[in-house]
């Protein structure tokens, strides 16, 4: 989960990474009570990039201009995302811009420090300048100095930037981050440093042990089973118990030239014992997607109690108007127990994946 800029800067402030005096604006009227002095920069708080180019960053010199600019920004979607807030920040005269980031590299299975002597938009234009230091064993400030030297920092700038990296690493470990970026890190004429923009990606698995972060980002559902739509628009929905199996079922259908409308993984039910509930929720969501003529449910391995699944399916099938019919496939189990539990229900049940796929495609074409 990604933090917004003002949330990221709140974390920076706590460990002493310098940030500008700033104030969160929830509506244009808030600008009348602005506590920081003009000139001010107003920044759209969205998670996507390219907001400056899209007009989401504006400089203003007084309240009248600020209110007008804020109204424009609130009404301006950036790559489809409307801002929930604006960050009003003191204007800063930058002499030089650097790039700093820490990424958890899943290939190396280590955190990696990244830096470039040219920050801001230059990083994208000139990615060859990016330098990295892999934190192979325990982190120590020398790793930060090593990166500083690699991006040719000299004199007092080297220890000053290294200190920022040390504080970034502290945040990275303390809050279980996947990704932490300061771009640009501004350097002014006196050599003082300022984190002008920041990105922070939290790790979803670790959120449970950081209640403070959860309150910062607001409670969001962490449950799976939400269907994803394909923009191609068939009329077959696919649900399977596991991500890999869901992808494989999509392949089975697409290899026969059929295009599914939407798909969702029901998670690995046997590990949570909640397959029935997840299935019921996903079936409801599939109904809301609309345009689905048949649902293919592909299950493999342990699925828990068929009586429990049957009860959920009965509830689903009793709805009015009648929901899309189900083709259920269960591989790797004793099909007789499933038959027994589902005997009274109008569902198709088979152990063969190929058969289930053929049946579902035929029903979708009806």
């Amino acid at each position: 989960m990604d933090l917004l800029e003002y949330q990221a800067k709140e974390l920076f402030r706590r460990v002493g990474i310098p940030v500008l005096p700033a104030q969160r604006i929830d509506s244009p009227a808030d600008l009348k009570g602005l506590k920081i002095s003009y000139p001010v920069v107003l920044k759209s708080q969205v998670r996507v990039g390219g907001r400056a180019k899209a007009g989401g960053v504006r400089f203003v010199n007084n309240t009248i201009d600020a209110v007008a600019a804020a109204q424009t920004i609130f009404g301006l979607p950036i790559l489809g995302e409307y801002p929930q807030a604006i960050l009003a920040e003191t204007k800063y005269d930058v002499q030089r811009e650097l790039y700093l980031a820490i990424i958890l590299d899943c290939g190396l299975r280590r955190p990696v420090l990244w830096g470039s002597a040219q920050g801001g938009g230059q990083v994208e234009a000139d990615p060859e300048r990016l330098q990295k230091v892999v934190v192979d064993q325990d982190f120590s400030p020398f790793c930060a100095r090593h990166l500083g030297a690699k991006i040719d920092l000299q004199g007092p700038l080297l220890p000053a930037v290294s200190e920022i990296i040390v504080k970034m690493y502290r945040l990275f470990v303390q809050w279980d981050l996947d990704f932490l970026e300061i771009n640009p890190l501004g350097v002014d004429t006196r050599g003082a440093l300022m984190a002008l923009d920041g990105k922070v990606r939290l790790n979803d698995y670790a959120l449970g042990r950081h209640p403070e972060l959860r309150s910062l980002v607001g409670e969001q559902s962490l449950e799976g089973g939400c269907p994803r739509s394909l923009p191609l628009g068939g009329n077959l929905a696919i649900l399977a118990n596991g991500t890999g199996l869901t992808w494989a079922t999509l392949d089975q259908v697409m290899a026969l030239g059929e295009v599914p409308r939407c798909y969702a993984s029901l998670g690995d039910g046997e590990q949570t014992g909640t397959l029935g509930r997840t299935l019921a929720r996903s079936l409801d969501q599939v109904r809301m997607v609309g345009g689905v003529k048949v649902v293919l449910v592909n299950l493999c391995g342990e699925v828990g109690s068929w009586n429990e699944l049957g009860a959920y399916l009965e509830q689903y099938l009793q709805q009015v108007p009648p929901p899309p019919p189900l083709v259920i496939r269960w591989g790797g189990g004793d099909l007789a127990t499933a038959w027994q539990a589902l005997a009274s229900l109008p569902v198709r049940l088979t152990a063969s994946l190929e058969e289930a796929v053929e049946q579902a495609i035929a029903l979708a074409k009806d």
Partner: protein
Amino acid sequence: MKFSLKGKVIIQGIMEPLGQWAARQMQAYGTPLVAGISPGHGSSFLGGVPVFDLVEEIATLGEQVDTSVIFSPPYEVLDAGLEAIAMGIRHLVIVTPRVPPLDMVSLVRRAEATETLVLGPNSPGLVIPGQTLLGIHPPSLYQRGFTGLVSSAVSLTYEVALTLTGAGLGQSLVVGIGGDSIPGSTISQWLQILDEDEDTGVIVVVGQVEDRWEEHLADHIAATIYKPVVVYLAGHLVRGGNISYPPASPMPASTYPWQPSDPQQRLTQLGQSGVLVANCLQDIPHLVRQAAPGLLGE
């Protein structure tokens, strides 16, 4: 990294619901399970298996334990792994899903320093058909044979085993490395193990499009793996799916660990390295047969 299962097995987190279930499955399969660990449940028994508070206490059994299967809750997995390593256990199978990645970084560092083989997290475990079950694989799907199977999926691993068994192709060793972002051991490491395994004739690798596969897997196979390799990448036929993207940032996309590279490109590279690429599940047994005509007399 050496892999040999000679000693006895314990379960950490045996009193967790899944741990209890797996203990029965593993015992029934003949896995030499000698103890369970569950802090607060010491001095009890589960299905005849003694339960201890500490790994240290298994010393009283006088058994040589070399494997621990871990079902502890996600935020206790790192501690459980460190405790097992401290007590000299050199094979860890982590079934627990959703372990924080930075905990895995710490565990991987310790495991490398002690030459410990870690499987998982979010792994269904390992099965040697007819011999040993470590984890939660449904044993009835497997049959003894010459195909080694390494997978990053859970239920899809069962599906592929079912497809192979259904086609009359048994398995030598089936291992799920786990689908989480920081695996304790990688596809490459298990390819190496299967390449050296005397009972394995052909290796099947199963992944999915959202995996962060090792960048140099194709080169690695071409340079160091001698046995034939069949790869199936689930979801590779899907176009326009909503695969997760990195936050907006000027970093080049290739440096993002969570940005999967283009599946078609990966498959082309693998194909060029001599790997047989399966289009869908039913292709897998055909390609295994094609790869190993001499092994079919089993």
